[in-house]
């Protein structure tokens, strides 16, 4: 059975911060639209718009990215303001894709570490923690490579502030 695919390529969901799904969609759009000073885009490394929420549907097509949000409201704005941690995983297979996903994550860094988006509500990203996952051993698949980064975001989502 296929895994959930509720942010998929070519989705037409309303963007901005009007809902959690919209936040995912907005981040995904921003990542795909980001162009580095060298003219590179994520699609150059992913080969497509291969970005998913939480998990890639089966069967996976490598390399791909997944997004996952943890959100905490801050007390001084009566819950209107949030700090969020956006976990981005870049997964590749075989091992030769490691430089590909590292390069893809460089583009994600470039996008999310300079993120100031007030398309609807406000999303700001400035800091992150990033690491390359160690090589798996049997019984796990040692040919799978991954880079995981957690970005700290400031959110003023309209889903909260327009209530």
């Amino acid at each position, binding site marked *: 059975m296929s895994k959930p695919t509720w942010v998929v390529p070519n989705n037409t969901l309303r963007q901005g911060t009007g809902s959690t799904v919209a936040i995912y969609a907005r981040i995904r759009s921003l990542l795909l639209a980001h162009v580095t000073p060298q003219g590179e885009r994520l699609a150059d490394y992913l080969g497509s718009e291969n970005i998913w929420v939480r998990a890639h549907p089966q069967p996976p097509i490598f390399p791909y990215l997944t997004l996952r949000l943890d959100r905490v409201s801050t007390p001084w*704005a009566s*819950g*209107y303001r949030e700090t969020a941690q956006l976990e981005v995983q870049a997964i590749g297979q075989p091992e030769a894709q490691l430089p590909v996903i590292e390069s893809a994550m460089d583009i994600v860094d470039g996008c999310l570490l300079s993120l*100031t988006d*007030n398309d609807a509500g*406000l999303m700001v990203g400035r800091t992150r923690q990033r690491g390359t996952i160690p090589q798996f051993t049997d019984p796990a698949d040692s040919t799978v490579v991954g880079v995981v980064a957690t970005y700290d975001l400031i959110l*003023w989502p309209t889903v909260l*502030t*327009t209530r």
Partner: protein
Amino acid sequence: MTAPLTGYTSSLPTDVLLDSGVLYIGSSVLGAMTGGLKFDPGTEYRAIEFDGRRSPVRGLDRKAATMPKLTGTMIQLSTTNVGQIEPGATVVASGAWTGSTSYQGKRAGSLLASGDYLTDVRAIWLRGSGAFVQVRFPAALLTKYDMTSQDSAEIAIAIEIEARLPIDASGFTNVGDMPYRIEYLAAV
């Protein structure tokens, strides 16, 4: 159900100011800094006193003086920076030390020359809209600094820059004119 009472307005995503800000001297960045920039207009008001006054009275306040100041902490010291923190310094190249360039601070008792002052010191902050807001001193003097090195970290050079009234510049010819501006701009 009543929503919580907050200061939030729908213009916040446009008007919120973000990040530490950057200090420019003219069109050039002063350099890398750590921590935020602080602007204090240093305004002093005086209220007219009279017998029997029980509280300050509207209409009887006068702006008496101002000492606008920008403070921050640099983590670098370029040769250009030395000239900025030591106004009017004398530069001696090829001094006694091999390959050295020596900056000697201006002699005490000497009046500063017009060129010793900094021009268009600007503390610039990013707005949520992607535009900018700046505090600008058309003329300024870096009046105080100290340097503190730290274990396993960049040096901290704390600086204080005070505004000076450019009395010969348009808009600043009255001694009561404020020697700073708060300005909105689309691009830096």
